């Protein structure tokens, strides 16, 4: 419904914003912090022959951080006074529709986590490094793409391609000039883990200085109207993004299974000493994995930036989910990371059927801890991996 006035205030009545619905009858009000808000529809701006179902023109949605809350005013033709409007039937079908929608969103998130987790898991498998800076590699990809996208003015697609290639190069450089040197010095695994924390802090604040603390969006594909596919409604960009993610994951998976380098990578991940003694150039394999890991982590960042917004903490925020996916699947295994990540993504979104959205990550992290209790080697890991 076009031209209806909506007034949004905080719970205590402080005004936030007034908006007017657009031609499709939708409206959006950005709020700066989570909490309860009061949404009032100005009845006098409604066309004379329409009224709100149930007659209540005030809603009080609770907004959680990072999740838009939707407020729906159902309209119906005005009925004669005294006549009770028919209640629309709401029952099981609404629940299943929501479940389908959340499954789709969970799959989307799971695929993004999987992209990042694949690199993390392979780096762990080949070098023993639990890389706490991997989340920053995700942010790096998104911010590089943003820089080419809005800074230079490239369309997002070439910008993303350049960003992914550049991030791969930086991944290579990171191993060539930093982690590789540390390995040569004989730095211990735990020391390297703490070094990676230092790298994470360094990069995070570097991003904050260069990018600032605000949230941004890419120049293209920003606000797309949703399309309806079966019970699922989503912006077309999400379908395309999922397609790209799936293709990349399949290509990487096939490369790991079929190509010489892929087989070498899995051999090194399995047992570096044995791989070296059978003639595999371990350092070369590790460098390839860092390059690939950096590139697909960057892709994950770009996809994350498409479905949410860009922020300097975006990678840090999903780092623990990446860890959860990797650990769930089995540290060091490539395909375990895939399976684990998709389970984590699905679990997070689907669990919002029952838990408040702001606590959805809590469930995933709790599952991580429970899995470690009963099957510490993960779903696809082998028992001997845990000392």
């Amino acid at each position, binding site marked *: 419904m076009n031209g209806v006035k909506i007034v949004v205030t905080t719970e205590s009545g402080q005004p936030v914003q007034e908006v007017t619905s657009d031609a499709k009858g939708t409206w959006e009000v950005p709020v700066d912090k989570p909490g309860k808000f009061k949404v009032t529809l100005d009845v006098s701006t409604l066309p004379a022959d329409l009224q709100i179902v149930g007659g209540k023109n005030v809603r009080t949605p609770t907004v959680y*951080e990072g999740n838009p809350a939707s407020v729906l005013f159902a309209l119906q033709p005005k009925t004669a006074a005294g006549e009770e409007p028919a209640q629309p039937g709401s029952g099981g079908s609404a629940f299943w529709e929501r479940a389908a929608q959340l499954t789709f969103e969970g799959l989307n998130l799971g695929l993004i986590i999987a992209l990042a987790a694949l690199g993390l898991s392979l780096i762990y498998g080949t070098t023993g490094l639990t890389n706490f800076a991997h989340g920053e590699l995700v942010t790096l990809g998104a911010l590089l793409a943003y820089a080419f996208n809005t800074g230079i003015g490239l369309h997002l697609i070439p910008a993303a391609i350049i960003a992914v290639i550049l991030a791969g190069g930086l991944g290579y450089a990171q191993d060539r000039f930093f982690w590789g040197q540390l390995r040569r010095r004989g730095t211990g695994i735990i020391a390297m883990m703490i070094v990676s924390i230092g790298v994470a802090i360094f990069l995070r604040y570097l991003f904050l200085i260069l990018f600032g603390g605000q949230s941004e969006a890419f120049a293209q594909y920003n606000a797309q109207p949703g399309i309806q596919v079966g019970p699922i409604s989503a912006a077309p960009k999400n379908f395309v993004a999922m397609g790209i993610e799936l293709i990349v994951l399949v290509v990487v998976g096939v490369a790991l299974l079929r190509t010489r380098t892929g087989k070498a990578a899995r051999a090194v991940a399995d047992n570096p000493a044995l791989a070296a003694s059978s003639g595999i150039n371990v350092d070369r394999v590790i460098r390839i994995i860092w390059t690939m890991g950096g590139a697909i982590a960057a892709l994950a960042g770009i996809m994350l930036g498409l479905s949410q917004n860009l922020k300097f903490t975006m990678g840090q925020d999903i780092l623990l989910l990446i860890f959860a996916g990797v650990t769930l699947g089995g540290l060091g295994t490539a395909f375990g990371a895939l399976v684990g990540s998709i389970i984590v993504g699905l679990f997070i979104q689907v669990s919002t059927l029952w838990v408040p959205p702001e606590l959805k990550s809590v469930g995933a992290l709790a599952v991580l801890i429970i899995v470690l209790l009963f099957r510490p080697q993960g779903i696809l890991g082998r028992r001997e991996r845990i000392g």
Partner: protein
Amino acid sequence: MDWITIISTTVKAAIGVETVWYALAAIGINIHFGYTGLLNFGQSAFLAVAGYGLAVTVTVLGLPFWIGIGVGLLSAVLLALVLGIPTLRLRADYLAIVTIAAAEIVRLVFRSVAFKDVFGGSDGRRGFSDGFYALNPFPEGEYGFGWLLFGERTLWVLVVGWILVALSCAIVFLLMKSPWGRVLKAIREDEDAVRSLGKNVFSYKMQSLILGGVIGCLGGFIYGLAYASVQPDIFGTETTFFAYTIVILGGAARVFGPVVGSAIFWVLLVLVNGVLSGAVESGAITFLDSTQVGPFRFLLVGLGLILLLVFRPQGIFGDKREIAIDAR
């Protein structure tokens, strides 16, 4: 540049509230990581449950201050048990991931809208420190000399805080000289060897986790009392990481390492902030603006942590042979 202000804030930082509560958190980590070799990345959760234990008991339940302290300590012990039972049998890197995940769970629950009535959401809780300041023996006024002045409330927090730091150091010193402490260090060096001597490694690790957690949680009290409030995001993973930086800077497995590390850490942060802000204002530095000075300091923290680990993992006072940085 206003050197007097820079120097006075720097000197204040050396003995200030931040130094105290980070020192307490770091002493706890030193027991876990330095002496026992446990990679506990969830230290911030211990501070959080203590601070919130006190805050919620006093503000929501309306009970007296001392009961709040008791609740805080008890929740730290409980958290250690809950955290330790599933994780202490795991390898070091798994332990790190699980503890960091647990700390995030604690933080997310504290800041959630669902529990806003109890924990106060992202705004946290305030107004629970009156019982503490009622005990203040210092009459109103400014204490100190020249430009080194503290109000009576800050002085009271600092006195209590430094007494707690001194007590914690004494406890660590005595315990680590005892047979019990030698078992902890032996666990750090070779867990299997200790097990083969008939010691219950799990039980020792658990005791270490509880002791370090309880000492660390005192830092949560000091923070809450000094600022008369607790917010969930203060107790994020970065708090834990900064405390690790402090332990490594001062020297792990040294009694005074965390205390000296904390003082140096905050002195450097405040000094760099003062000098950089001054330089930006006077136009000597043009590649940063005044809002970027804050992040730039933490960028230096990250860089410092990397350089320390690479070139001097034993920190200032540590002994290289006593650092548990090689996984077994």
